[in-house]
C-alpha cells in the first residue's frame, strides 16, 4: 500500500514583477498502484507539482503525504525520472542503474543481480559497460527508468520522460513503460503534454488549468488493461482524446489571452 496525497498544495514564487502563482489548491490522491497522468498547457505548473511531490521544492501552502507520512524532503521512496535523462556520464550503464543501491549500501552481489535483471528487462543487453555517451536518447531514458526502479520506490514520479524522443521511439517507450507498470504495479505520477500518451498510459488523467495551475478536470480512462498499441486507433480512445483536447484547448486559449493582456 503506497499512495501519494496532495493536500491543498499552493506554490507562489516572488519575482521582480510581483508574485507568480504557480499552483493553487491542488488536492488529489493517487491510490496504491494507480497510474495517474497530469496534462496541461505548458507553463501550468505540472513540473512544479512533481518537484513538490519529490520534495525538491517546498510548497508555499499545503503538504504532500506518502502513505500518510509527510514528504517534505527528497527520499528514495519517491523515484524521479526527468526529461533530460540526467544520467551520470562518468558511470557505466550498470553503475548508473546501481547508483541508488550503492548509496544505500547494498552489497555488491545483490547490486549486480538487480542491475543485470533490469538491464535485461530494459533491453539494454550488451551495454552494461557502456558510458551514456554511446547511447541513443531512448536507451538513455531506459537507463534512467531502470535507475529509478532499482531503488524500488513506492511512488514513481515522471516529468515528461519521453518529451525529448522522436515519435517512433516514444511509442516504443510507452509500450515498454506500460508493460513495466503491469509487472511492478507501482504508483506512478506522470506529467506530459502529449494527450495520446496520457490516455494510453493512465488510469486517470488530471487536466490542469493555465497559471495558476489548478486541477480542472479529472478523467478516468476506462480502456482495458493490459494496454496495447492498437487501442490508440479505437473509438473509445478517440472519444477520450476529444474530451481532453476540448478542455486543454480552452485552457491554452486562456493562456494566450492572458499573455496578450499582460503585453
Amino acid at each position, binding site marked *: 500500500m503506497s499512495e501519494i496525497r496532495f493536500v491543498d498544495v499552493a506554490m507562489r514564487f516572488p519575482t521582480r514583477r510581483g508574485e507568480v502563482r504557480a499552483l493553487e489548491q491542488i488536492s488529489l490522491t493517487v491510490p496504491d498502484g494507480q497510474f495517474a497522468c497530469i496534462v496541461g498547457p505548458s507553463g501550468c505548473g505540472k513540473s512544479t507539482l512533481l518537484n513538490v511531490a519529490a520534495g*525538491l521544492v517546498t510548497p508555499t501552502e499545503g503538504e504532500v503525504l506518502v502513505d500518510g507520512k509527510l514528504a517534505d524532503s527528497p*527520499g528514495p521512496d519517491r523515484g*524521479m525520472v526527468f526529461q*533530460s535523462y540526467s544520467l551520470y*556520464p*562518468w558511470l557505466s550503464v550498470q553503475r548508473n542503474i546501481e547508483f541508488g543501491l550503492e*548509496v544505500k549500501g547494498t552489497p555488491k552481489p545483490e547490486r549486480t543481480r538487480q542491475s543485470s535483471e533490469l538491464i535485461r528487462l530494459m533491453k539494454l543487453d550488451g551495454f552494461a559497460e557502456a*558510458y551514456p555517451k554511446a547511447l541513443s536518447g531512448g536507451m538513455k531514458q531506459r537507463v534512467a527508468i531502470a535507475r529509478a526502479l532499482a531503488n524500488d520506490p513506492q511512488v514513481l514520479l515522471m516529468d515528461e520522460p519521453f518529451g525529448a524522443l522522436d515519435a517512433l521511439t516514444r511509442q516504443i517507450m510507452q509500450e515498454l513503460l506500460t508493460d513495466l507498470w503491469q509487472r511492478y504495479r507501482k504508483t506512478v505520477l506522470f506529467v506530459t503534454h502529449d494527450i495520446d500518451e496520457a490516455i494510453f498510459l493512465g488510469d486517470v488523467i488530471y487536466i490542469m488549468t493555465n497559471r495558476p495551475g489548478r486541477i480542472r478536470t479529472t478523467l478516468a480512462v476506462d480502456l482495458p488493461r493490459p494496454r496495447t498499441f492498437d487501442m490508440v486507433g479505437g473509438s473509445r480512445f478517440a472519444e477520450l482524446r476529444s474530451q481532453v483536447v476540448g478542455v486543454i484547448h480552452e485552457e491554452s486559449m486562456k493562456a494566450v489571452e492572458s499573455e496578450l493582456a499582460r503585453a
Partner: protein
Amino acid sequence: MSERVPVTQAALARPPGGQRRRRGLLRTYLTPKQAIPRRIVFGLGIGSFVVILASWSLASVLINSDLFAPSPARVWTSWVDMILHRSFLSDVGWSSFRIIGGFLIAAVMAVPLGLLMGSFEVVRSFFQPPINFIRYMPASAFIPLLILLIGLDENEKLIVIWIGVFFQLVLMVMDIAHRVPDEMLNVAYTLGASRWKVFYKVFLPATFPEVVDALRITMGWAWTYLIVAEIVSAERGIGSFILVSERYLRSDRIIAAIITIGILGLITDAVIAAIHRRAFPYVEKVHA
C-alpha cells in the same frame, strides 16, 4: 557527412553519365564548415610551418643582418650551443620549477574555492566581488611592488604566477561548478543520497573534466607572467637568459629561447590532454 548539397539539386547540376562523384575544387574545399580529407588537413598544418620558415629564411637573406634577421640555421646553431655550452637547460629547469610551483599553489587554492563559490551562494557573494576586481589588475603590474615588499627571491616569482593564475582560475572553476545541471543533483537526492554524498559522488565528478581543461588553459598564462617576472629581476631562468642575450645583441639566442618556451608549452599541453583522455574516457568529444 560528405554531401551537404540536397541530393536532387546535386543530381540536376550534373550531366547524366560520366564524372558522377567529382565535385568542383571550390565546392569541396570552400563550403563553410564542410570537412576536408584528413591528409589535406595534415598537409596544410605542415605547410604553414614550411611557409613561415621559408619567409623567415628569405627575410634573413634579404636583410642580411645577424642582429635584425638571424637566419633559421643560425638560430638552430645558437640553440644547440646554448644547450651545450651556456647551461641553457639549467635556466629552463629554473623556469619550469617556478611555473610548476607557482601553478600548483594557485591551483590547489583556486580549485576548491571555485567549487565552493559555484555551489554555495554564501561563499560566492563574499568572494566574487573582490576577485572580479583584482583579476583586472595585470599580474605584471604587481612585480615592482612585490620586489619592494619581499625582495628578489623565489617567493617573488611564485607570487607573480600565483596572482596571474589564481584569480582567473577561481572564476573559471566557479562557472564550471555553477553549470552542473540541478537535475543531476536532484536525481541523486531522489535516489536517497545525502547532501554529502551528492557532493562527492555527483557534484565533484561532474566538474572534473572541465576543471582539468581550465588548468590547461591557465597553465599557458602562467608562462607569460613568469617570463615578465624573470626579465625584470632574476639571476636564472629563461627570462633572465633573454635579458642577458639582449645586452649582448644576440637576437638569435632570444628567438631560440622564445621558441623553447613555445615547445615547452606544447609539451605541457599534450601531457595534460593525454591525462584528460585517459582519466575521462566518458567525455563526449566535441571535435578536436
